[in-house]
């Protein structure tokens, strides 16, 4: 294959035997470790088979299809998923091989690799196939090497240790009944190692190729294998990177290549990740930790590696925005990247390695010791130190969550119950696989683990997503319909009841009359409206828009009636339109009530143009039609209780007639403040309006009639008194309560 190594520093090609670059004397480490690799991979793959096979319920291997739908719901909560996941990727292997399912070629690799080795047959084939297109990819690319490549060789060894030691404690945890995880867990290394075997020489060429693979938006199937081999590479390079790039990152969040390198290292060199924690938090997590819970696909991949549930998630999660924007190009790496991240929460409160070690003692005695020598074989002691602490917790967390992890911002204790309940509830909306939960392997730890993860996710998320100062939401709000609420509820009800009795029932039945407590005040807006209408000349064409439904009728009819009476007493032609389905009906009924049909006072003639759907469009269309039929109207009268509808008419009228046509409005009281700016004391496009009972009463006063509005005005006043009373009461109560809270 390749007979030369390109120096990362100067790019000169060096004979394969070289350890140092001929020209710049940069170290070309690969050679050093190369020989040792072929040996290792074998040992660690065999045990995995042994462990993983039994753990997966046979019937699942047969028919994955029926389970699949169910998964998405369970996935984040993580029960029942493991087995399904197992068969699922299997099916993928069978169907798609390395290419994976058709729907998302990009994703398939991540899903398979972590799992492959847990089945004897697929790994071999798939490994083969990987190598093929992987090598293909290599041949295709002859690029100068990046910094990273030099150290490449040191790495291949690296993967070994974990499988070795981790497997040890798996063995005894097997009894703990967490078989599935292991099955899933083990796989997450061999890929590297398998890749590692062939890696030695190709890698050099391969890396740059990978690095610049980062640029294109759509990853070729080739990418995945490469990505796989990369972690090792980048891993060593990471420390260097950190030194170099940290600042940039912190400064700039979206630097695809950066992330690529950063994530790559993490799988095999947690220390790196460890140190990167701050940077990552800044740069990395918002992106995908915020999206930690897994969408179906990920669910399958992730479920098995409970602890690492995040990884695939993290990785695949990126896919969405990754497909959207070339921004983040690293899903494949992201997957391996996570284990370190998993422990960040812990790292966050228990930052110092000591704590780690403490935890190790009580958590992972077995795994710890073997790990050390294994590493030392490969890497400088100093690094080992960092490696160690970071490393084990990752697995420990993965396999059994310890409280600390979950604690950080421990959400409602009721959670566990809540979760399950929630699921049952949450399924229906999705409308699928409600029956699935039946086959739940009793894996308590799993569930907890995921819970822990979720809560950790929460921690990070809230850490990130909340500007300091803002309290965690929910906290105050979840206490729900508490007694205070009830009391207040009844109290307000009582108030209203009282008001009703005193103002409506008594007068009606006992003939008891409230003294008039309030006088209608006339408002300029109303006066102006009145004047405009008064000023209509013979044959003026006026558009009246009935923009309210029966719901608002009780208020608006009162406003409408005096206006209509006034309108129809003018010798004008009225065109009645509406953009609300019920509008026409309302118009008809109220015209009836006003008595335009028979009233001899009626001088106006009117016709109902009817209803047009699509608010503004309808309005503009109606206006258009009117001006086509009977020339541009002299005025548009809008009767509505909705801001948008008022605006729509003002704007459409203005837009169509360039502000020549005045708009008048009979409005609900709710709209007065909104109308004000358009009216602007007469200088606005809205020439005048009457709003609410007050306005109606004022209008009646202006037109010298006494109508319902005037009658009802008093009642309204009394209601207002009650309302104000309530509000003040509430204010006082809660003000005091608030003070109390402040004191305590």
């Amino acid at each position, binding site marked *: 294959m390749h007979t030369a190594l390109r120096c990362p520093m100067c790019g000169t090609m060096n004979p394969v035997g070289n350890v140092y670059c001929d020209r710049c004397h940069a170290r070309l480490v690969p050679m050093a470790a190369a020989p040792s690799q072929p040996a290792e991979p074998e040992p660690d793959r065999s045990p995995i088979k042994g462990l993983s096979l039994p753990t997966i319920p046979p019937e699942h291997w047969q028919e994955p299809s029926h389970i699949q739908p169910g998964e998405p719901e369970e996935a984040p909560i993580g029960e029942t998923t493991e087995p399904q996941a197992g068969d699922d990727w299997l099916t993928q292997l069978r169907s798609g091989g390395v290419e994976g399912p058709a*729907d998302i070629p990009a994703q398939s690799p991540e899903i398979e690799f972590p799992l492959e080795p847990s089945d004897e047959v697929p790994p071999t084939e798939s490994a083969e196939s990987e190598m093929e297109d992987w090598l293909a990819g290599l041949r295709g690319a002859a690029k100068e090497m990046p910094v990273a490549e030099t150290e490449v060789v040191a790495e291949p060894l690296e993967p070994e240790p974990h499988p070795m030691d981790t497997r040890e404690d798996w063995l005894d945890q097997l009894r703990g009944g967490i078989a599935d995880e292991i099955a899933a867990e083990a796989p997450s290394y061999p890929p590297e190692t398998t890749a590692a075997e062939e890696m030695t020489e190709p890698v050099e060429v391969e890396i740059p190729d990978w690095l610049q693979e980062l640029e294109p938006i759509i990853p070729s199937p080739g990418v995945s294998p490469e990505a796989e081999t990369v972690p090792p590479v980048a891993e060593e390079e990471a420390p260097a990177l950190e030194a170099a790039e940290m600042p940039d990152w912190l400064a700039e969040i979206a630097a695809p290549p950066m992330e690529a390198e950063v994530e790559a290292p993490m799988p095999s060199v947690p220390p790196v990740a460890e140190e990167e924690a701050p940077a990552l938090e800044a740069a990395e997590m918002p992106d995908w930790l915020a999206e930690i819970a897994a969408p179906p696909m990920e669910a399958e991949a992730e479920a098995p590696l409970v602890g690492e549930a995040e990884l695939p998630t993290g990785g695949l999660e990126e896919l969405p925005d990754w497909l959207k924007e070339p921004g983040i190009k690293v899903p494949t790496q992201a997957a391996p990247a996570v284990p370190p991240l998993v422990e960040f929460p812990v790292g966050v409160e228990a930052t110092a390695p000591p704590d780690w070690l403490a935890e190790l003692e009580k958590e992972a005695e077995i795994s710890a010791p073997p790990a050390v020598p294994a590493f030392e074989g490969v890497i400088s002691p100093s690094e080992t130190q960092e490696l160690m602490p970071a490393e084990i917790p990752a697995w420990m967390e993965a396999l059994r969550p310890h409280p600390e992890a979950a604690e950080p911002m421990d*959400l409602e204790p009721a959670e566990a119950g809540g979760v399950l309940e929630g699921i049952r509830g*949450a399924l229906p909306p999705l409308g699928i696989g409600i029956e699935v939960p039946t086959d739940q392997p009793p894996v308590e730890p799993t569930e907890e683990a995921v819970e822990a993860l979720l809560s950790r996710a929460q921690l990070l998320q809230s850490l990130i997503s909340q500007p300091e100062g803002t309290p965690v939401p929910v906290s105050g709000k979840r206490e729900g319909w508490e007694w205070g609420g009830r009391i207040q509820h009844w109290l307000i009800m009582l108030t209203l009841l009282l008001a009703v009795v005193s103002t409506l029932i008594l007068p009606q039945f006992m003939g008891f009359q409230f003294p008039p407590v309030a006088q209608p005040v006339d408002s300029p807006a109303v006066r102006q409206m009145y004047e405009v209408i008064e000023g209509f000349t013979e044959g003026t064409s006026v558009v009246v828009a009935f923009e309210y439904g029966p719901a608002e009728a009780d208020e608006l009819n009162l406003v409408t009636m005096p206006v209509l009476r006034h309108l129809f007493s003018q010798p004008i032609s009225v065109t009645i339109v509406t953009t609300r389905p019920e509008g026409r009906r309302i118009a008809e009924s109220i015209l009836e009530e006003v008595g335009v049909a028979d009233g001899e006072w009626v001088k106006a003639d009117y016709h109902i143009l009817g209803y047009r759907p699509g608010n503004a469009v309808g309005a503009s269309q109606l206006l258009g039609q009117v001006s086509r039929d009977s020339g541009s109207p002299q005025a548009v009268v809008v009767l509505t209780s909705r*801001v948008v509808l008022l605006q729509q008419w003002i704007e459409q009228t203005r837009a169509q007639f*360039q502000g020549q046509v005045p708009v008048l409005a009979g409005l609900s009281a709710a709209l007065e403040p909104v109308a004000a700016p358009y009216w602007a004391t007469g200088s606005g496009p809205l020439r005048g309006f009457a709003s609410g009972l007050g306005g109606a009463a004022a209008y009646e006063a202006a037109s010298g009639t006494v109508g319902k509005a005037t009658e009802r005005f008093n009642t309204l006043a009394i209601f207002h008194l009650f309302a104000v009373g309530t509000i003040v009461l509430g204010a006082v109560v809660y003000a005091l309560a608030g003070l109390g809270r402040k004191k305590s």
Partner: protein
Amino acid sequence: MSTDTVMASLLLGVGFIVLMGLRILRGKKGPDPMVRPLPVFQELKTEVGYAAESGGGLHIALGNGSLYGQSAITSVAALQLFSSLSDTMVAYDAPPIVTVGDPTLLPLAQDILRRTYERVGQAKLFDPRQVWFVAPSPVAYAAGAAQVSALEPISAEMVIGDFSAEVGFIGQSSMRHGISSLAAVAAPAAIGALYPATSRLAMGEEMFAGSAQVTGERRHVLALLAQDVLRLILILAILTSALLAM
């Protein structure tokens, strides 16, 4: 052409230029423009997280806005915000129940969900019935949407879009069921009604900042900046016209 139309065209032109300018600028590298974070939107995503955690669904009320008139754009903005959230929701597997108060919104809302699922490669999981068309009138819609929290296991309600005072119903019901609620509304009446109801309320223009706030996407952020530029222009215009008027 009246002076109005002239001014309008001017404003439009300026807006267009600004947008285009920023759009070109988007292509360039360089530090992302910073935007004042609005707590509400910062919490939106977190809220989704809690929803997922507690296993409950989310109820997103998109309001009565049709695809016409002012509500058209308000609704588009709401949809924008929704789509920027939908990724997270689907990711969290906190599938939302979306209620719309106008048929024209229905297909759009469904599309957004559908696309999100497709993007995640789970098109088959998309269920058009996650989007409910409640009723075409404000009150009916509000009352109907308020029922959702009673019928479905909802753990968070987000009121985004074009509403009026009736929105209080939704606020009330979420208070009753102890559901946390967030709101982003443009209509003054709705703001007024919600102001006392929830402290987490994005009022008026803030609503249009939603998508930028949720997804720090450059294009959205830049749109906000364009908004700011125009704002300054408006302010200048007002001042000048004020001086002229005196």
